[in-house]
């Protein structure tokens, strides 16, 4: 039983990291109907931005809240600049092109970032700076609640609340929702759609930046290909919850994180990657637009 609760805690912690990355996928999809394959590499660049700024400031070996904040800020800034550039130079010229072309472009951008990172940062893994001391905060009948898990969960919750506020309580959030409902009508109502799309990329990318620091904190090894698998799983989580839906992304990510942790705990860790897709396929067959996705009616 204690094992079970321990797995739940680990699963929630993993799930919240997936959620941060899945949100980036789902927001871009909601607005552009584009699977932004480059998102997983934006996340990777975030980890490197944090790594190099820690090196530059000499805080690689100084765990503490201030380090955490500095690293989060640098990863978020690095990611949002990159996201903005990708949107401006790769996706904007293709706004009116067929969807598949934009998708291939996204894959191209993703490959470009991966291989450029291998050239610039080197292909060998680097050790991420220690951000927080990993200590057991509470122990409840054999279940350990560690400071890292608490920090991951707290930061994720904070980000979700901020995102929720941004989307549902601010003017720019209203504009985002309008663009995602109907681009043409939104632009007729005086919304500068290009600017809103760029802003969406900034928000999504900086969430990926937060995710990268949290992952680096928990699993301190970063390399240029680190985004591939986690990006794929976060994307699966977004589809699982119903792509385009913010709540769905979080729900899907939690399901993914928990089930993955359970498989690793009780079955075999080699099947963890297959499981993610297994769940996805089962859910999509019964609910073709995801758990919380809107069922679109086909009009002739």
């Amino acid at each position: 039983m204690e094992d079970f609760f321990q797995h739940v805690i680990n699963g929630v912690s993993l799930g919240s990291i997936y959620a941060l990355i899945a949100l980036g996928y789902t927001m871009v999809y909601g607005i552009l109907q584009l699977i932004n394959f480059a998102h997983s590499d934006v996340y990777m660049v975030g980890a490197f931005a944090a790594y190099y700024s820690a090196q530059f400031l000499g805080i690689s070996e100084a765990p503490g809240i201030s380090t955490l904040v500095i690293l989060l800020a640098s990863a978020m800034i690095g990611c949002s600049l990159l996201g903005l550039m990708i949107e401006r130079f790769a996706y904007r010229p293709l706004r009116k092109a067929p969807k598949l072309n934009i998708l291939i472009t996204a894959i191209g951008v993703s490959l470009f970032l991966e291989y450029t990172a291998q050239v610039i940062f080197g292909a060998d893994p680097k050790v991420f700076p220690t951000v927080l001391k990993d200590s057991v905060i509470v122990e409840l009948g054999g279940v350990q609640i560690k400071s890292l898990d608490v920090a991951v969960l707290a930061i994720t919750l904070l980000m979700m609340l901020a995102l929720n506020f941004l989307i549902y309580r601010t003017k720019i959030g209203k504009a985002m929702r309008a663009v995602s409902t109907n681009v043409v009508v939104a632009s007729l109502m005086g919304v500068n759609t290009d600017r809103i799309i760029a802003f969406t990329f900034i928000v999504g990318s900086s969430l990926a930046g937060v995710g990268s620091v949290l992952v680096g904190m928990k699993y301190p090894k970063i390399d240029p290909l680190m985004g591939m698998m986690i990006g794929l799983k976060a994307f699966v989580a977004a589809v699982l919850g119903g792509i385009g839906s913010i709540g769905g992304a979080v729900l899907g990510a939690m399901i993914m994180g928990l089930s993955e942790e359970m498989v690793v705990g009780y079955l075999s860790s080699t099947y963890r990657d297959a499981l993610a897709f297994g769940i996805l396929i089962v859910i999509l067959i019964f609910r073709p637009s995801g758990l919380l996705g809107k069922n679109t009616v086909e009009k002739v």
Partner: protein
Amino acid sequence: MKILLQSMKTPLITFLVLLGIGLFIDIGVNAYIQLILIYILINMILAMSLNLVNGYTGQFSLGHAGFMATGAYTSAYLSTLIPVPAGGLQIFSFLLFAVCGGTMAALAGLVVGLPSLRLKGDYLAIVTLGFGEIIRVVLLNTSAVGGARGMYGISGPTDWTLGEWTVSKFVTGYSHAIFWVLVCFFTLWRLIRSSHGRAFLSVREDEVAAESMGVNTTQTKVRAFVLSSFFAGVAGSIFAHYANYLNPSSFSFMRSVDAVIMVVLGGMGSLTGSIVAAMFITIVPEALRPLQEILGVDIRMVIYSLSLVLLMILRPKGLFGTTEITDIIQWLKRKMSPGASR
């Protein structure tokens, strides 16, 4: 010129011509380039077969590598059960393996296609991606085929003698690959121009209209998917026997992406476009190798990915769009002929 074009329409003559070219290559070219050539042929089959699903039927599959893996492993496993005879008979055993591998992949395609082809667009893409990954993970965990270590020493083509001639390993493998490229090309080419083919096209153009015209859209999609998986399995079989080594990691998501890139680059719905794109995509990374020696860093893939993005921005319909090379030749002929009325 005209006779050449006419004769290219006959599979047998094309086969003999390409075989003759193969004999030349065997004498004049080293093993490295021969290997790349075989890879080009394999990629051609992959690209053409995926074009049937992604280009002609308008669906979006991202799991082609999974079917290729199914074919490759089936075929490699069979070759451990049935020994490959020496001499000229080996060609027949490779043909048999390819057919079995393809059939197995087609079965996998049926199992995957039946439930998932009800989905549309990106959802379909991600489900096929998922199936592809599941096939790979299952192979990774099956110790009968080597698991993560991979499968070594798969019997491949060997040198054999025909009278006083020695038929080299390359010519055997090459003729096998060429055979399947032509089977794939002519099957698809003629299929697309048949009534079944028009059903595929109608599903791509407008599913609702197709359905109201009496086309069973789900069945049509599954048919395209199964046929496409068959050829992917064949490609896998050729790959397994020529490389003599299989590893689950060579059938990752990236290989599916490569296949999609070839289809889009060549033009969705252009078989000859797929062929040209398969050559291009296989050759470019290899051709950029000298650059790596000059600069000391591996920027091949950087250039490759950058050119991909630029190509999509500058030439969004791919190299050929939906036209074929033959259309272009005919257009040129019309332009060049004196006294053309148009």
